[in-house]
């Protein structure tokens, strides 16, 4: 093995060394923040502009289709969005068609916004939380025409008919827009069944618009829907959430996480460059 070059050694390095380096690089920046500037991308700006159109009393939907497991990427955008809905004087309906642990997510949002929002908002009047219902696209289609058919009561056990906020609301046309926080395709269900399905509406209002604030991995697939106008805004992962936090003026976890993301991304790019230099160097030697 004496003939091994540095490149050979690097190529055969135990994967666990990389894992430890990565984990340390992701963790340490939380203790020593860098505070790098964040530029807002057009898709996040559009999302924010959409939030700014909410008039006092208008109702929007937060659909929590991301689990606790995706908090790192999804939670900050939800927190910033709920904050902005409150700032605009809007009202909020919350449910989940994706994950059964949405109760914990909603509890966390309430904890993080306890002093900013929830001292002021009254449950049942300003916001209502219905919890999780399985069924995916079938469920979204059902909710379009008959919310009470799916959610007979909220998580407190209060009948939907007795909730003041829901007094005139039983179909999608009474909701201004959907803020869908996704790890999967739920936003597309809302586009297909709510936004583009107005011929079906029993209600008399306009079909709601849809905005996405999902995981960063969804950005590639969602960008085509954003560009075609099916989504009025797109907040992609923790980076998009950090941009949204800057826009709404609420510094949250995404902004803090950006330092960690910066260090780890540079580390990965360096690793890729190193691997490619090694490949070309050893290829030259073999020739």
């Amino acid at each position, binding site marked *: 093995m004496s003939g091994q070059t540095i490149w050979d050694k690097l*190529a055969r390095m135990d*994967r666990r060394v*990389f*894992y430890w380096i990565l*984990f340390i690089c*992701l963790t340490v920046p939380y203790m020593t923040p*860098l505070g*790098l*500037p964040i*530029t807002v*991308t*057009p*898709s996040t700006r559009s999302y924010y502009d959409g939030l700014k159109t909410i008039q006092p009393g208008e109702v929007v939907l937060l659909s929590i289709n991301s*689990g*606790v*497991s*995706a*908090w*790192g990427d999804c939670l900050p955008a939800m927190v910033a969005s709920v904050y902005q809905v409150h700032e605009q004087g809007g009202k909020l309906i919350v449910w989940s068609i994706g994950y059964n*642990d949405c109760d*914990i997510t909603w509890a966390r949002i309430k904890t993080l916004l306890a002093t900013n929002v929830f001292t002021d908002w009254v449950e049942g009047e300003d916001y209502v939380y219905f919890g999780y219902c*399985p*069924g995916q696209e*079938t*469920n979204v*289609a*059902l909710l379009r*025409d*008959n919310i*009470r*058919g799916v959610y007979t009561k909220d998580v407190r*056990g209060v009948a939907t008919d007795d909730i003041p906020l829901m007094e005139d609301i039983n179909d999608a046309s009474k909701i201004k827009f959907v803020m869908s926080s996704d790890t999967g395709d739920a936003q597309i269900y809302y586009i297909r069944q709510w936004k583009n*399905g107005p*011929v*079906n*509406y*029993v209600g008399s209002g306009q079909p709601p618009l849809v905005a996405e604030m999902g995981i*960063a991995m969804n*950005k*590639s*697939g969602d*960008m*085509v829907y954003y*560009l075609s106008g099916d989504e009025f805004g797109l907040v992609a992962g923790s*980076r998009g959430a950090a941009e949204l936090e800057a826009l709404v003026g609420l510094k949250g976890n995404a902004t803090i996480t*950006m*330092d960690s*993301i*910066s*260090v*780890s*991304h*540079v580390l*990965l*790019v360096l*690793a*890729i460059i190193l*691997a*490619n230099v090694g*490949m070309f160097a050893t290829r030259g030697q073999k020739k």
Partner: protein
Amino acid sequence: MSQVYKRELVFIVTGVVALVMMLDYFFGKNIPGLSGSGGIAGQLQTWALIIQLMAIGLGAINLIQVHYRQISRKTDMAIYSIIFMVFFAFLLLLGLYKLFTGVELYPYTWVFANVYTSLGTTLYAITGFFVFSAAYRAFRARNVDAAILLIGGCFVLLANAPIGEVLWSGFPLIGNWFNNVGQIPGMRAFTVVGALGLLAYGFRALIGKEKGFYSEAS
């Protein structure tokens, strides 16, 4: 003829349900009794939802069978299967108590908040490690295709991280162009091709050419 109810009738049921859904989507308002909370389409959607909800027991039975086999054969993994069984039974009983009485016992909440969410989050995040080592070992410009993949990936990486802008102002500019324009032809092609594929599969299923979903092979 005796087999009609095992095959042909199944196709007819599938076709009728699909047709009702399509009619509802395009002409719902114009056909009385089709749309809305009491309409046929809404009823069928509710039926589908209930069937879906009831099907979870299949997964449970399958998992219990697997672990029961491990225990009865006394394999090396039997101890873990016992742990699985005990923990599953314990939590299920707590959950059933909540379901029938409406009272959520603290251990259920505690396990949900501290065990289930922690493990779920951690298992979800574990792929971050593998992405890193996979990128180091496989992300190499061996040919033109790989080089394009590499360049696109690296610019998007540096555009997503705020440090990219600090290193060079061109990184976010180019990276965001890849994100907003560069990737669109490929991603749009995936979207269109996927939708066409779904249509083709749907029509094949409706005319009885697609047999996988009702497990004829078995």
